[in-house]
């Protein structure tokens, strides 16, 4: 067994080396295809969920087609919100070690 002092020194050297290489290592951005795929699903799914919820509400309340129309549009808006949020996350990550999510990007 190597002696503990040497080990501690080695550990400290490792920590230092790791800290130096850290920012470079975390830079690796996700592939553009991955980003595109993520944005597309976020957008489409929100519209589908909005429309689906509207359709369900209409069925339950017997108000066809008011909620379907309203929720469809709200879904589209939610989709754009999702994409904005996803883009903010991607930006934050590729800008380097800073924590993800600028949560409230103070809209308008």
């Amino acid at each position, binding site marked *: 067994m*190597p002696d503990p002092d040497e*080990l501690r020194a080695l550990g400290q050297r490792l920590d230092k080396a790791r800290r130096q290489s850290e920012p470079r290592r*975390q830079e690796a951005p*996700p*592939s553009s295809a*991955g980003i595109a*795929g*993520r944005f597309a*699903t*976020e957008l489409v*799914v*929100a519209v*589908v*969920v*909005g429309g689906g*919820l509207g359709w369900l509400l209409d069925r339950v309340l017997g108000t066809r087609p008011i909620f379907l129309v309203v*929720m469809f549009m*709200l*879904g589209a*808006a*939610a*989709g754009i*919100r*999702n994409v904005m*949020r996803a883009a903010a*996350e991607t930006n934050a990550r590729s800008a380097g*070690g800073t*924590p*993800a*999510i*600028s*949560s*409230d990007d*103070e*809209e308008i």
Partner: protein
Amino acid sequence: MQNPMEQFTIRPILMGSRPMMHTHVGHHEFYFTNQAMWMCIVVGVASLFLTLAVARPQLVPGRMQSVAELAYEFVANMIRQAAGEDGMIFFPFVFTVFVFVLFSNFFGLIPGSFTVTSQIAVTFALACLVILTVIVTGFVVHGLGFLKLFVPHAPWYLLILLVPIELISFATRPISLSVRLFANMLAGHTMLKVFASFVIALGGATAVYLKLMSIAPMLLIVAITALELLVAFLQAYVFAILTCIYLNEALHLHEQH
């Protein structure tokens, strides 16, 4: 041409001519299917691998131990970066989800195997688990204040519009999380099968030049398989990082950590 979707069929495992472990509760029939079998294999191999890898820990890690340590550091860094230091209480959860998805995706690439994550039922159940964890965490940490997540800073007359939008946006999460993983696996495997059927169709042709042309889709399959390896890892990563991001929101609401 063989049906390229045939590979996703769920069927009971037969023992002799009878389905294995067949039971029924009321009118519902339960079978031990190829899906269940592959899930058991994935969980079994992953647990066994990680347990064996750190069974006799060495100061200078061997190959297996290195892989386990790399996986640990990868997930730990991901959580620290996305959810901060206090997100580390979720390390076991995120690590389990990540390893399960990763191993399922990789096992699906073995010829003749079954891709567990190509079933929306599996990915949706996983996504629901993640979102339920997020909701429970949010209410435990912030109480009713968690609902502030759905109220952006805006004048009240805009909130009438914005709160429903935020609610729908939140409701899309389990679906986009599960659809992304499921669609990626489904598309990749279907594509492989379709190109494979081209090879067979061209190779079976009588004209020699058609036979020679079958090399082209064959090469494509090799390339796509490599791409699928990347996608398998990337989708597991995306699933895990989004889990971290959602957990971060539940832990810290809108503020920066």
